[in-house]
């Protein structure tokens, strides 16, 4: 088993005929993901990804014809909130929104509607997820992974690749690796992911990669202290040198009014018994020190 995605994932790509949809869609297929459909309004009936995937006008058509249960959104920011709603209305259970640059206030009603419908949204502004050896959804390079039993959850993209590569190089494989997104308003939080990993019999240990801004890491630490003391964990927090009041690339990565600092997050995680690496390369040793075997 893995979380979010696995062998039973049947993926529809929203925006499959665009440049990003085509490039990453091809990489997902080659990784072995069951990409069963794509949608682009007006291009229903065509085939995408070298003729390997049928294109539908709507997500509802894709679900009806192919049984898609997961979607991955590469639609530009102006149309992305609507794309999430289209997936929700078509009954998609797990929705990954890769799109960056969606105005934060647009996501407030969308996240609420996703929740009310009982679906799950990951992102926006996220790299997606990989369950090594089973499926990959999004833009994480498949080559960095190794099959294994460590769950990875992160707010970042390339920083996650760095950490995962360090783990794979050290012989530590992953059960599922997910980027939850760098925006202030996102569908799935650290705590949501920790709950999924906690319930997954194939996840023995967890790596949490956070960054400055907000209080999601502090909440994750509090949740771990209460519910997850027995699982080996390691963490990394980016932005120890970030100045106050400046948005560090990600819309959500900002220290304001003295809150959201790396120091506060590191202190909260360590108080919960989670060791925080000072470089991603230290993560494998910390995991082993915390009791991970292998």
């Amino acid at each position, binding site marked *: 088993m893995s979380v979010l995605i696995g062998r039973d994932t049947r993926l529809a790509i929203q925006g499959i005929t665009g440049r990003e949809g085509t490039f990453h869609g091809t990489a997902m297929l080659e990784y072995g993901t069951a990409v069963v459909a794509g949608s682009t309004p007006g291009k229903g009936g065509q085939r995408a990804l070298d003729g390997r995937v049928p294109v539908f006008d709507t997500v509802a058509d894709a679900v009806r014809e192919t049984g898609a249960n997961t979607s991955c959104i590469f639609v530009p920011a102006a149309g992305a909130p609507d794309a999430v709603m289209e997936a929700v209305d078509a009954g998609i259970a797990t929705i990954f929104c890769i799109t960056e640059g969606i105005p934060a206030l647009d996501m407030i009603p969308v996240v609420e509607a996703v929740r009310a419908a009982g679906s799950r949204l990951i992102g926006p502004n996220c790299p997606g997820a990989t369950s090594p050896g089973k499926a990959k959804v999004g833009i994480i390079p498949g080559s960095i992974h190794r099959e294994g039993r460590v769950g990875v959850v992160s707010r970042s993209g*390339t920083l996650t690749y760095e950490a995962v590569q360090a783990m794979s190089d050290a012989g530590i494989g992953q059960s599922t690796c997910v980027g939850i997104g760098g925006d202030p*308003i996102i569908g799935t939080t650290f705590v949501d992911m920790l709950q999924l990993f906690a319930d997954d019999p194939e996840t023995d240990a967890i790596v949490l990669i956070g960054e400055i801004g907000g209080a999601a890491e502090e909440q994750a630490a509090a949740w771990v202290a209460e519910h997850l003391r027995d699982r080996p964990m390691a963490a990394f927090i980016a932005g120890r040198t970030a100045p106050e009041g400046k948005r*560090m690339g990600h819309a959500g*990565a900002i220290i304001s*009014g003295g809150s959201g600092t790396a120091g506060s997050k590191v202190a909260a995680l360590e108080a919960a018994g989670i060791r925080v690496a000072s470089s991603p390369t230290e993560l494998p040793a910390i995991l082993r020190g915390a009791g991970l075997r292998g």
Partner: protein
Amino acid sequence: MKIQEADAKSLLVAQGLPVPAWEVARTPQEARAAAERIFATGADSVVIKALVLVGGRGKAGGVKLAADADHAERTADLILGMDIKGITVRKVLVAAAADIIKEYYLAAVLDRDARRILLMGSSEGGVEIEHVAATNPDAIVTLRAHPYLGLLEHQARSFAFRMGLSEHWREAAAIAKGLVATMRAHDADLVEINPLGIVRERGQGGETTDRLVCLDAKITLDDSALGRHPGHEALRDLDEDDPTDRQARQADISFIKLDGTIGCMVNGAGLAMTTMDLVKRAGGEPANFLDIGGGARADKVATAMRLILSDSKVSAILVNIFGGITRGDEVARGLIEARRVQSRDVPMVVRIVGTNAEDAGRLLQEANFETAGSLDEAADKAVAASRGGAT
């Protein structure tokens, strides 16, 4: 994007919020003329405030009262040109000094955890809300707006009463609704009034009326929404816009100048922050945050290099690329081209892994670049290079 107090007040006025009249002056003479007009309306004194996009203006001496037009001119002369947290004051706001009975704090912000707009208020106005949160958290009143409908009438009313504004509840509820409306109309991350004040106004016959008004305004706009608000670009303060900020924006590069000596070029925001942190851990100081974004091509790399080198303090450059969508060989070509045309020779340490990293390594080796395998090694080498040591 932060906007100046005067522009923030204009946005509030457009939503029907009560804001006492103000003028903006760029010279002592303009300030004098503005003060004369305000005194003509019956004001006893005027307040002159530095217009800069940093907090703590009052403490820095950037907010002063003046009792007559001469005094206003001298005061403006003092404030204009003043340095507040590294920013030169180029304009001031002039308004009638209010007779303040009591000050409150009121703000609409994004609540990330609840995924709602959060209304936050306190009867301890005029001080930073962080200070109140630390010393007297019970004085802070909060309320979350409806995710679909915004702030409802009954929510605004109950908020006014909880703020202790029973005598002014209609005004307070209207202002609370106005803040959330301003936030939604302009895609703001923050709309803050500090202080919101009960002010005493005297009529012609000497009778007094107490009114609730917005005495200050701070608004931060969501950068992701600038595209759908064509008017917002005009609110960008070009006085405080560094030329490098402008170049970075035009090239779609995320760039923040810092005080150190080691320039950083990275793909991805989280990795860019991590690279800065590792420079610091290795004993150096990062000169900047720079994220060239996903899929960056050679020309973008050259622009990024120019941005880094425009800072004369930079004595070494660390390039860290984890290729996913970004192709390592493209970045390597961009670096080689950038170094060929750059005006200043600064030691550079390059680490490229991921997509097409082997091609990149060969290109860099042929061009005699210093390379590194791991991120830790790259940071150590860059710090050594910045000190003029062998790498």
